[in-house]
């Protein structure tokens, strides 16, 4: 018996778990979908992404999933014998060991809070994630450092790619217009530093991107918005 294959959704449609996406073996279940017999169903709330025969669902919500080589912003929540425990805004905390924290010499038994104290925010890169979600970080690469001054905001981590934009187009537009220094962590934490008024504008813009991330033509919309708002600076 041969069934005719059929697609029930369009690119960029919003789908909910359990929704039928396609019928037949001509389509392949990608991330966020699963196959049950002949049908492909959605496994997450998200947007459809069609690429050839593969159907994917790009999540619209959900917590950050730690991934190798991600640069994230974390908060120091504990100081241990051999390093620091860092809150990652995911379901798990990460470990930053002395070895991966700094290339300076640290003598045995010295006070680690002199390097990173409790409550400090750091930009760090994930160097290892195990199956049990034990996360190792490093701060020994260009751009990775302790954050001083400025402010931290939290956004939906699924919207981070839109906030950064293609090759960083969106975030450099915000940086250029507002003159703020901005660091975006893949885990949804964003650090901003600049004049108070421009900081507020940058945050307002980021919130707008977050709200409208699933819509097309976003870059032009944000460009217009920024130009309009710039006059008040």
């Amino acid at each position: 018996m041969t069934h005719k294959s059929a697609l029930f959704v369009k690119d960029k449609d919003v789908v909910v778990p359990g929704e039928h996406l396609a019928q037949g073996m001509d389509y392949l279940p990608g991330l966020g979908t699963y196959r049950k017999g002949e049908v492909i169903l959605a496994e997450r709330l998200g947007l459809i992404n069609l690429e050839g025969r593969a159907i994917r669902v790009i999540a619209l919500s959900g917590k950050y999933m730690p991934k190798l080589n991600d640069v994230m912003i974390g908060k120091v929540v504990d100081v241990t014998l051999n390093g620091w425990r860092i809150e990652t805004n995911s379901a798990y905390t990460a470990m930053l060991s002395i070895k991966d924290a700094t290339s300076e010499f640290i003598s045995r038994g010295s006070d680690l809070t002199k390097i990173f104290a409790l409550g400090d925010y750091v930009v760090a890169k994930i160097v290892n994630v195990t199956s049990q979600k034990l996360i190792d970080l490093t701060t020994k690469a260009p751009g990775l450092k302790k954050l001083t001054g400025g402010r931290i905001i939290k956004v939906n981590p699924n919207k981070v790619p839109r906030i950064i934009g293609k090759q960083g187009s969106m975030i450099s537009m915000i940086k250029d217009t507002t003159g703020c220094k901005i660091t975006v962590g893949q885990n949804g934490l964003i650090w901003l530093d600049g004049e108070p008024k421009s900081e507020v504008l940058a945050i307002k813009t980021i919130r707008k991107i977050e709200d409208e991330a699933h819509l097309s033509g976003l870059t032009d919309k944000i460009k217009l918005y920024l130009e309009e708002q710039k006059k008040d600076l």
Partner: protein
Amino acid sequence: MGYSQRFDGRKFDEIRPIEAKAGVIKNADGSAFFRIGKTTAYAAVYGPRDLYPKFMQDPSKGILRCNYSMMPFSGQGDRVRPGQNRRAREISMVTEKALLPVVDLVDFPNAVVDVFIELPQTDAGSRCAGICAASIALADAGIPMRDLVAAVSVGKVHDKVLVDLDYNEEAYEDGPVADVPIAIIPSTEEISLLQMDGEISKEELLEAIALGKKVINQIIEVQRKALKDKYIVKD
């Protein structure tokens, strides 16, 4: 004489008007509001997050933890004592078991997903409303799920098999009453919750479940729409 006309004038296979909304609690990772007739449920989902006490952690997958609670003023006039009691613990447990077949937490070892269900107003069918709200809230929180779960109560009043009993029907005194809350996973038609209170014959029970499977589609549509409405352009 029998039960020829329902107290609120509904048909025997007609559910009360339903309404649902996703994302009503901003602080939560996912949330939902669900109302069927006068029974109103709010669900908030937090997590996946760290689980303590540590002995509860499962290194092979994340766990789901549900908490059902009726608000003090939610009943039929008398104050409902808030917090844990025998009934609330049972309903928390069956809610968890009704939702567990669809949620996929293998990506979250040692973590927990907390679901809090609060009922500001109840008029029977509260565990079903809670399950419906919780399943919307879990999807809203971005938890991987194979499907949504919809629940409704079916049963028998006097001589009639019907769906979605309200409080007056549950308290019917002139004949036997059976209240059977069921939860169904629509894509497989599996039943993930089946409880019974009262008296019903085997044939009538099967008839009631078949009736429930028929009306469950109306509920699932409302749940899907609630989730999609959150992302509709509002210009």
